[in-house]
């Protein structure tokens, strides 16, 4: 599973362009709550977070417009209309599925949206059988030559590393 995630994240470091109304609308629709973890980072803050010793990543980070993360132990903590609108938007013709894995009630899916020859959005959505929900999106402007790996020392990125290497270790209901 970790291998697949690394590969998919590397693919995400592509040319990303255009605003993402579907995802921003979803984040705007979810109210602040102690039961919901959320993180929205603009590209400008990422550049500050890098520090001087991160020249290697700077070229890549300069092309990130935004990273968004949201998680909840129970998807019922999120407004159902917002989740429904997000699902509908992601299944629209502009989003293309990359891969989907499901084991009982646990589900992981990766999607992209393209804008010409660039990819405007990369999305990962995880739902577990216990009702947990996790959402990640990256918006920016990358090319394959810019790929340096997304290894940013920012609070919240470690949530992605919690995904197990082996699918058998996915949380079960």
């Amino acid at each position, binding site marked *: *599973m*970790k*291998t*697949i995630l*690394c*590969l*998919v994240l*590397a*693919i995400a470091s*592509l040319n990303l362009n255009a605003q993402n109304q579907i995802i921003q609308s979803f984040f705007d629709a979810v109210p602040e709550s102690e039961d919901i973890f959320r993180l929205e980072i603009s590209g400008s803050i990422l550049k500050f977070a890098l520090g001087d010793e991160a020249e290697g990543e700077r070229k890549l980070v300069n092309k990130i417009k935004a990273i968004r993360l949201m998680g909840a132990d129970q998807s019922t903590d999120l407004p159902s209309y917002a989740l429904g609108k997000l699902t509908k938007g992601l299944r629209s013709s502009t989003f*293309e*599925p*990359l*891969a*989907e*894995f*499901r*084991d*009982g*009630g646990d589900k992981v899916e*990766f999607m*992209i949206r393209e804008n010409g020859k660039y990819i405007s959005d990369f999305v990962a959505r995880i739902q577990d059988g216990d009702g947990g929900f996790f959402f990640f999106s990256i918006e920016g402007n990358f090319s*394959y030559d810019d*790929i340096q*790996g997304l*290894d940013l020392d920012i609070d919240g990125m470690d949530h992605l590393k919690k995904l197990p290497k*082996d*699918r*058998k270790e996915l949380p079960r209901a």
Partner: protein
Amino acid sequence: MKYLFTFLAITVLSISSSFAQADAIANFFEKYMDDERFTMVYVTPRMFQMLDRLSPDDIDDPDADVVLQVAKDLRGLRILTTDQNPQGFYKEFNAKFSKSNYEPLMLVRDKGSDIQFLIDESNDYIRELVMLVGGQDEFVVLSFTGNIDINKVSKLAKELSLPGGEHLEKLEDKN
């Protein structure tokens, strides 16, 4: 003229049959991909196209090298597996799936399970590898599409711990 019509009819029927088989797998997959009784893996052609553009240096994971080497020739992966009523689903799938357009590669009977490997071969390359497992404990239908090297897909299945993938090792024994 009569022979021309006959030839055209046979050609159309052959093409239709081929599409029907591709549809049989796709239809079965679509029917059960959201069914929680199944474990499902679906990797789209788009994903494999993107993997094709990556080099192992881009990824900080040693296992990725193996995956990328194999994935560059693949165009799709679908897996459905369940341990609930496996023999029922095996019968259902076999009833809808005619193997006439596939060449049987190997049949293994192991501890009460039937494991079938079938290929769709064209111009000396394998376009699709289908694996069916039907037994008391599990049902698996797996389909790889692309330009398939059997040894490599077996390694890929092992690296990614694909559900049902352990059965692909039997293909390595054959080779």
